Every structure is written in C-alpha cells, then in structure tokens.
C-alpha cells in the first residue's frame, strides 16, 4: 500500500527552482534514503512535506489525501513527524517535558478541567507521564528525564529529538541528518536504533543523510537529488555504481 505519493511537486523561491517536478513513492513500512550534495533541496522537500513551505505546484498524497498547503501542526495530526537538521529541542525544558509536549495532541483533558483540577486532569497527566517514561526508556534516556534538554550531550539530544517525534505517534517519520555530528560508534548505535524503532512502532521512515555508511546499511531504497531534481533511484547497490550519482558528488570524469 502506498503511504506517501508525491506528484510533480515544485517549489520556487523567486526565480530559483529549489525543487522541480519531484515524484516520489513510498510504500508502507519502507525505509527510504534521500541523499544529494549540499544545496540539492533535500531539506526543502522535508519542509514541503511538513507544511513549513507551501508548494508552488504539485500534490502530496499521504494515505491518498492531499496534504499540500496544510499547516505544520495539521500535518503532524495526520501522522507525519520529523526531526530537524539543526536540533530544535525545547532547550530550557526538562527532557521529559519535551516528550510530554509532543504527546499534547493526544491529551484527554480540557483547559477547564486543568484549571479546576478535575479527576480527568490527574488521569491524563498520569498517562502522559507513563507514556513519556516508556519512550525515554526505549531511547535509553530514562536517567536524564529531569535534566534540562540543552545540557545533554549532542548524541543524546539527537536521540531525544527522535523520541519526541515518536511521541506524536506518527505513521511516517522524517529524519533530517540524524547522524550529523556523531562519532562512528554513535552512528552505529543510531543505525541499530532506527532499525529497532521501525519494527517496534511499525514506521515508515524517510531519512536525509550524508553519512553513507548509515544510508547504505539501513535504507532499502535511495533517491538521489541534485539541483532540485531526482537524478537516480534504486537499491543501495545500484546507487553506488550509478555514474550520474558519482558525477553529482565528485564531478565529471576528465577525458
């Protein structure tokens, strides 16, 4: 079953075509990589998918419904969650509050029952507390639950961002360079983690990454983007030997 279908998606900023005539198909349960040189338009695609930008033309079908033009929070309610290339945690809040905020859309009590402290408030808060602790445990952050998010080491901040995204209960998870700034060992752990959460939460994952070892290890299919256009698509093995891809990354061969 197709989960995400992007048809002829384009985005221009003035005269610059950041993304043009993009077509992507993602089946349910797949783990897809999106790679390309710097400035190819990868993050722009994420921003289009999550409603940060409104597409100039084309449509984005998520579960067969067009989500192009929705606000970011509406896209999240439909079931797409993301992480950011430059980490955007709620820095001054505790780790567990970061996760709880992402649980907000599933909150079961109203503003009034919060102000009057009705039983539904306590029940709702207890559920959120339990659920966020559970998530933190999966990401091995349970010990840091009360710590301020910005004081965490870089790798843990990245993990927390993924945990927070998962708290929104997504069907599709978009990871924007999850391994950026990680050392090889952390990258290896992340690779295993991505595989694990995909099984556990039955996710479909689309990830942008520059770390080729990670991309080649976990991704089942890869799209290669250059100058806002898809230049190649296929399984990791095909991509590795595709002359167009090599050209995009390393430049043309000299005769």
């Amino acid at each position: 079953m197709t989960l995400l279908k992007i048809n002829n998606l384009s985005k221009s900023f003035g005269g610059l075509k950041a993304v043009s005539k993009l077509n992507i198909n993602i089946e349910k349960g797949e783990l897809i990589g999106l790679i390309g040189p710097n400035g190819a338009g990868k993050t722009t695609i994420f921003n289009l998918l999550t409603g940060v930008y409104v597409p100039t033309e084309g449509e984005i079908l998520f579960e067969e419904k067009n989500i192009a033009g929705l606000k970011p929070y509406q896209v999240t309610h439909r079931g797409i969650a993301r992480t950011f290339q430059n980490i955007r945690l709620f820095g001054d809040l505790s780790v567990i509050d970061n996760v709880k905020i992402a649980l907000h859309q599933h909150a079961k009590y109203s503003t009034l029952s919060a102000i009057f402290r009705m039983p539904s408030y306590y029940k709702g808060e207890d559920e959120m507390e339990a659920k966020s602790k559970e998530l933190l445990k999966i990401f091995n952050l349970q010990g840091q639950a009360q710590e301020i998010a910005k004081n965490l080491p870089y790798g843990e901040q990245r993990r927390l961002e993924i945990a927070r995204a998962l708290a929104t209960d997504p069907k599709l998870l978009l990871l924007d360079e999850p391994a950026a700034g990680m050392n090889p060992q952390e990258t290896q752990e992340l690779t295993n983690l991505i595989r694990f959460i995909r099984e556990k939460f039955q996710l479909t994952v689309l990830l942008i990454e520059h770390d080729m070892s990670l991309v080649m290890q976990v991704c089942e299919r890869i799209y290669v983007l250059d100058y806002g256009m898809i230049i190649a698509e296929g399984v990791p093995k095909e991509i590795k030997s595709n002359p167009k891809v090599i050209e995009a990354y390393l430049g043309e061969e000299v005769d």
Partner: protein
Amino acid sequence: MKHWFQTKNMIVLFGVVLIYGIVQLLNLNDIMPPFFQLNLILACVYIIMAASLNLINGITGQFSIGHAGFMSIGAYTSAIVTAKLGGPLYLALIAGALSAGIAGVLIGLPTLRLKGDYLAIATLGLGEIVRVIFMNIDYVGGASGLSVPSTINWTWAFSLMVISVIAIHNFTTSTHGRACISIRENEIAAEAMGINSTKYKVLAFAIGSMFAGLAGGIYANYMYLIHPLTFNFLKSFDILVMVVLGGLGSLTGSIIGAIVMTFTSALLSGLSEWRLVITAVLMVVLMIFRPIGIMGTKEFSLNFLGKKGERNDSSQNK
C-alpha cells in the same frame, strides 16, 4: 480528590489562611493604618495583573505591553454594572473579566501574527486606543472619570487574588500550559509537534486579559474614582517591570515582583518626582546583577519537603 489534599497543598493553604487572618485581624481592630490597607489591596490587584501578564509574556513568550488597556476595559465594564446599573459586585466582576477576555480574543487574533518588537508596538498602541476611547465616552464620564462606590474589602481582594493565582498556576502546569511554553521555547518545533500555535497564543492572551479585567474590576470598585489616565501606558510598564523584576516565566516571581513594586512605590510616595527615578535605578541595578529577574524562570517551591526526583508529581495543584 485525594490529590487536592497533598501535604504541599495543605502547607500552602495554611500559609494563605495565615496571611489572610493576620491582616483581617489587624483591619478589624483598626490597628492597620489606612495607608497600609490601601496598599495591601493594591498589591492584590497588581499580583493578579503581574501573574496574568506573565502568562502572556513569560510563559507564552509573546511580548505584550498593553496590559493596562485590558485592565481599563474590566474596570469600566464593572464600574458601569455597579455605579450605573446598580448591579451586585460579583456580577460586575464577572462582567469585567469576561469583557476583557473577549477583547483579548478580538485583539489577539490579528496582533498575535506579529512577533517580538512589532507585537510590543501593536499592543502598546491598542492599550492607548482603549484609553482614548474611554476618554471620549461621556457616558462613563470622559476625561473627568467615573465615580464608583467602594465595595471591595480585604476579603474580596485577597480571595480573588488567590483564586486567580491558582487558576493561572493550574493552567500553566497542564498540557495546555506546556503547549504555551513550547511556543516560547521554539515555535517551529512546537508546530512540528502538533501544537496549534495560533490557538494557544490567543488562548493565553485571552486568559491573561480576562484576569487583567478582573483586576481592573477590583480596582474600580475599591478606588471610588476611575479615570482614563490611570490606565495609560505607564501603568502597562509598571506591570511589565513587576514581571521582569520577578523573572519572566516565573509565577511566584511575578507575585514577589508585584509586592516589591507596590510597596516600593508606596514608600517612595512622599518623594513623588523621585519615585520613577528610583524605580528606574532599581531596575538598572537588577539588570546588572541579576538579568534573569529575582526568580529567573524557576518557581519558589516546597519541593525540598518531598522526595528528590519527584519534581513533577509534587509541583501540581497549589
């Protein structure tokens, strides 16, 4: 209901009742000088004002400096109910709070699209517009003001202040309050986590305005006379100073800030022209030595009484 009677809440309740009782006892036996009675009630009014502005500025991070405008809407509405229509006080206070809350929604919807400095200027302007409107309505006395019978006493002012603070605290420590805080922390991330930022900005603005209206109602029904100039932008700045002094984002800080500022002004009332200078110097000194305000974003809490690591469990429900 068992949550309502935690040890912590009981201690807070005891403290609140103790303060009320002592002041009430002094009032009844005529030991309290009238000057102090006045300032204690003003302190209650300003605590409500500071706590509600903190909800907008400190918790949700939307820099509004037109808070006196909402106070005046509440003050005039409740004054009309009591002085003009002869209605009961409680109805007047409810009407004042609701009208200011509705005004908050109407003003918040267009202005909260603005950010930072632009929002500050827009709210400043709106506060002044409200004042000029009241200045030009003859029904409420125009520039000469409107006289209102003084029916508010210490019991009314103190209990309404406690109710307001509890309501704002309870809102802040719920998932809806966390949604507001997430907007302050990072609006883009908040939206990506499924939080409708417009809705929560307007909600915080409406709740903040509503309590400012309530404070205005208390003020109007205590002071004998309300006057458009009482609610000029200097009043908005006074409230803002209280919030910043106490620490943006800290409710207990706002309470401390309001008390400190009310009594500093009272002590300096003999040297009227120096009052503003001395408060300004105080602010400069504070900003040099403690730029985050007295409390920072932290709350004064009784957590040291509870077990460590249960911060969230024990900070609920004042």
